[in-house]
């Protein structure tokens, strides 16, 4: 109960500080320093997490919060919050490379998804659903479509009608999707003309590591993150989420 209350308090705080529902301007901006490598960095280099170029990016701890269970009823907050680190690297042409590393004790929860291969013509069964009760791990970075500094941040719930967002989403077993949103329940595939992004995700130590390359990121653009632990039946709004961070100098 107390946990639920604290989650609600966090949500109330988020609403007043960060969604623009309050009349106050945003306060308490969280910034991520942008690392600069000595020479120009190509996208391919930035997408390989082990490349020494990443030593120029300063790791920042990102605070994640757990959403309350809104309609599922059966799921509750177990109090765990994955430790999450973020690094940011400036790239030419207004692009940035972002690297999020987060704990997940079972980063291979949906291995069965990878085994969804056609069993061949000798078998009666076609590609089959092997784990209807399992949910994939997932990660997303949310960026307002209007890049640059913001007086008020978009709603953390997938943006709002005045402040639509780009969602650079990755889901285990299904890969990368570029989505857009303008409020809860509005998430849809981005149009073909949307600025393209890239992400590479791989298991790392005791969790996952995702590296994105995001286009058109002006200084002070807000970014927010979410991760889903499939083993905890997280999906949809049931997830760990961060407040807004700003791309710092």
């Amino acid at each position, binding site marked *: 109960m107390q946990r639920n209350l604290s989650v609600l308090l966090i949500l109330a705080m988020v609403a007043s500080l960060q969604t623009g529902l309050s009349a106050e301007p945003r306060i308490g901006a969280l910034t991520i320093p942008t690392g600069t490598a000595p020479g120009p960095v190509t996208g391919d280099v930035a997408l390989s997490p082990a490349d020494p170029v990443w030593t120029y990016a300063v790791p920042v701890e990102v605070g994640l919060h757990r959403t309350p269970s809104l309609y599922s009823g059966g799921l509750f907050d177990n109090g765990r919050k994955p430790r999450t680190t973020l690094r940011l690297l400036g790239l030419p042409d207004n692009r940035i490379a972002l690297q999020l590393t987060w704990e997940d004790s079972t980063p291979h929860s949906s291995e069965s998804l990878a085994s969804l291969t056609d069993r061949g013509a000798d078998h009666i069964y076609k590609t089959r*659903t092997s784990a209807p009760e399992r949910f994939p791990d997932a990660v997303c970075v949310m960026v307002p479509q209007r890049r640059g500094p913001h007086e008020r941040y978009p709603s953390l719930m997938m943006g709002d009608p005045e402040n639509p967002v780009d969602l650079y989403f990755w889901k285990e077993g*299904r890969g990368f999707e570029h989505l857009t949103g303008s409020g809860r329940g509005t998430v849809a595939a981005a149009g073909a003309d949307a600025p393209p992004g890239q992400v590479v995700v791989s298991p790392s130590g005791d969790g996952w590591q995702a590296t994105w390359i995001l286009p058109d990121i002006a200084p002070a653009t807000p970014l927010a993150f979410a991760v889903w632990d499939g083993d905890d039946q997280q999906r949809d709004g049931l997830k760990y989420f961060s407040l807004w961070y700003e791309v710092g100098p």
Partner: protein
Amino acid sequence: MSSHQYAVVLDLNKCIGCQTCTIACKKQWTDGDGMGAMYWNNVETQPGTGYPRGYHTMGGGFDEQRNLRPSSLPTAEDYGVPFEYDYSQRLFGGRKKPVMPDVKPEYTPNWDEDVGGFERGNPYYFYLPRLCNHCTHPACLEACPRGAIYKRQEDGIVLIDQERCRGYRHCIEACPYKKIYFNEVTGTSQKCIFCYPRLERGTVQACMAQCPGRIRFVGLLDDPDSPVHKLVRVHRVALPLFPERGTHPNVFYVPPFSPPRTGRPDAGVLDDPRFPLDYLKYLFSDAVVPVLSKLHGELLKAQEGGRSELLQLLIGRTAKDRFQIVPEKVRKATPGPVSDALPDDPAGPPLTIVSTSTKED
């Protein structure tokens, strides 16, 4: 509000458990990738575990305050892990050993086929065909945060928009009948579409058309000419399954009422029932008692040489007697509530469709 509501009546006294309906549906709609465990129509032996295994004790539906009741999700094992036999080894590979399944079978649809129950020296079982109930208050629709599930205005059919669905599976949890299935290949939830493309052409559903037991009746619940209206609203002998789950199903069952126990041919079905009354009440609520009495009375009337309009209706001699598919009526539908139930209707409260969610976002 929906203008009309298609509904189904299944006469459990006539089902022979042949699974023709199951296969008719499977061949028509669910033999694609990711659909192996999908039986939009299944027939299970009762008493039994059902399909998916134990669905009726998993949860879902609404509580007394009309909140969604929590539920677990069925696992792959609850649907039964599919197995195959390698006949080629036995027939052509020179192997002498018996052909065995490649996976140890632990569960399958209708796993407890004909096991049934046993009480006071009498074995008993009956078959229960199940499909999505196209509920008046669909818990699945209520649970979907994306508005991907909608109830059609013109005929009350409940559908999942495959473009909007993102595979969250809240609907599977919410459905107390577990009649939505997850397709891992498409990443979406899928369910019975009530053969709407057939209905729109004036053709009855595959499961209804193929049933050799002629147990299936279909038509508009609100149309006095339809057989389902007569059975549910006029004769009032057809009841929804687990009505207390609060979704107001539109699939109704004529409960099984024969034969009496061995050695008591003269006893009434309520005096010495072969199917324990408590079990039938568990499935269909206390309303099953007056229905059984009524059916028994009609049977006696016919046995004494009288004519029972109800039994004539239940025989369902021709397709015309059993099916009322009226695309022209549905197309011309004008919006408005459908409410012709009696206040103490065993089938539940008056038919008003509150949620006709469309793709608003």
